[in-house]
């Protein structure tokens, strides 16, 4: 008897590629030179952040007023800021801040956003209505204005900026996950799960989530760049990371005051931000092409 009513075999989760998939993934991913460039920049960024104390020639927080606003020299290869702090060392430590904010924000917002999207899409009804209307309300603000508001509410500082940006970027994940869940839900294997009486939670986590996950992965990578960009904007205005913390955005704000005499002070951190955001966007693009070419142009 039991052999007749065998439980349908769980479909292979498409997000866990087999060997041939993995090879194809690698081939497509590394096809474009800009993607390789992005990977190189990110590797350098991560290494810089990890080994910051070894790379930085000076203490990034040490004021030295006699040495203020110096041009590049052998001792200070990128010069010094208005308090005599070594620009290159602050740049190196700024990599830590950028990565910390980027990953911290994306982890929080992606997890919370995807859970909400999964619930809204799978359960539907009133839960869907409530979650999605709140997301609509959050999207009624420009992202930067919302982040500004939340950062002001929470007060500046690393942790609070991460929380503010997490809330501000939540709707993207929720909406994407919700629409993916809605389409995955129509598949026969989900109906089969329901037919054998599998619990909702189990179906959601084991079957809907793995099959609706891929587009979110691409969004996460691109969001890393966007979040770093937004944090830089907040810190530039003066609501993000507070001094003496080394954040590229606030370094740029200081540099703006000395744009004419020491342009490097403004340009160095801004170019660092641009490179990193560019790298994350390229890796996100490569990921999208390699995972699912159909997504091209939709994210």
């Amino acid at each position, binding site marked *: 008897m039991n052999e007749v009513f065998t439980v349908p075999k769980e479909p292979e989760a498409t997000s866990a590629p087999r060997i041939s998939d993995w090879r194809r993934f690698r081939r497509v991913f590394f096809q474009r030179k*800009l993607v390789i460039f992005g990977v190189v920049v990110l590797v350098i960024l991560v290494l810089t952040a990890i080994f910051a104390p070894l790379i930085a020639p000076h203490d990034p927080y040490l004021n030295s007023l006699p040495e203020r606003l110096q041009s590049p020299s052998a001792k200070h290869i990128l010069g010094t800021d208005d308090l005599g702090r070594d620009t290159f060392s602050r740049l190196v430590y700024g990599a830590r801040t950028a990565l910390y904010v980027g990953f911290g924000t994306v982890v929080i917002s992606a997890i919370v956003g995807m859970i909400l999207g999964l619930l809204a899409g799978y359960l539907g009804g009133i839960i869907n209505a409530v979650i999605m*209307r*709140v997301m*609509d*309300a*959050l999207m*009624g*603000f*420009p*992202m*930067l*204005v919302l982040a*500004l*508001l*939340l950062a*002001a*509410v*929470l*007060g500046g500082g690393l942790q609070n900026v991460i929380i503010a940006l997490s809330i501000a970027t939540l709707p993207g994940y929720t909406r994407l996950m919700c629409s993916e869940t809605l389409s995955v839900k129509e598949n026969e294997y989900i109906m089969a799960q329901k037919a054998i009486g599998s619990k909702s939670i189990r179906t959601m986590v084991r079957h809907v989530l793995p099959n609706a996950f891929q587009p979110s992965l691409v969004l996460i990578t691109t969001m890393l*760049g966007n979040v770093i*960009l937004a944090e*830089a*904007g907040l810190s*530039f*205005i*003066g*609501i993000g990371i507070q001094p003496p913390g080394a954040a590229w*955005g606030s370094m*740029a*704000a200081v*540099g*703006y005051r000395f*744009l*004419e005499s020491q*342009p490097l002070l*403004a*340009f160095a951190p*801004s*170019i660092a*931000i*641009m490179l990193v*955001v*560019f790298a994350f*966007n*390229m890796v996100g693009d490569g990921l999208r092409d390699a995972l699912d070419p159909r997504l*091209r*142009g939709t994210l």
Partner: protein
Amino acid sequence: MTTYIIRRLLWGIVVLFLVSLIVFFSIRLIPGDPVLIYAAQQAGSGGGLTEEYLDKLRVQYGLDKSVPVQYLNWVKGVITGDLGKSIRYQDDVGGLLLQKLPPTLYLGLISVIVSTIFGILFGLIAAIRRGKWIDSVVTFLSYIGLCVPVFLLGFLLIYVFGLKLRWLPIVGYTSPWKDFGLSARQAPMPVVCLAVVSLAVTARQMRSSVLEVNNMDYVRTAWSKGLRERVVVTRHVLKNSLIPVVTMLGISVGLIFGGSVIVETMFGIPGMGQLLVQSIFSRDYVVIQGGTLIIAAMIIAVNLLVDISYGWFDPRIRYE
């Protein structure tokens, strides 16, 4: 169609209501007492800092009531067109916003027009010359546009055109009706900064949209009829690839309002962005509430117009 518009309007009001809740209650969590900050500023210029004076101010601005009552009073005011009184400026918020909106709207409108027109143009050219050098240039520039911090672009423009060449003034805003020449020299740098992100987004969207339309049967038919390229592109490809780009308009408006926060701070433009930042620093609740509510209302309105315009671009679209 009419029922669709009415339903969307009602949705818009629901969303606005949620927006007002979020704004109002989150602002009340901001540490710092606005009355104390104001009184401290006044104390510098001779005002007293006594408890009675502070209490008098609290009663005057309704801050002595409980938070839900404050919210109800505020909503009651908003519905009748009274956005409350700014604590810092000692002025009606409605009047203050009316005074700060024109610079933002003026520069924002130019930015939307610039980014839409050039975005469509660049995206179209890149797509119909797919794989040629011009496609690579447009694609690469749109990548750059998406990742350049607004202030880096500002630095670059200010450094080159303001400080080195001395062609353009680096700060300030003048209404074009007051002094057109000065306004025309002050506007370009902020406009470029505001427009660049949405220009990049629009160009990318347009490119992929045109590539999709190019594969349609009716485009192949148009070619095989022997129509010239200009006719095929303008008559058949352009209009049909505009729908996804029109959707971008709502996103563009959001991006430009977000960008105005940084751009107005940078270029010293007395607009909404600068007002918001200053109000956050001085904990001027009423102004932040009114300002964000107005911005949200405008974004919701633009998105509504965008949704309605689909029917014009593609008559097959029916509204349930």
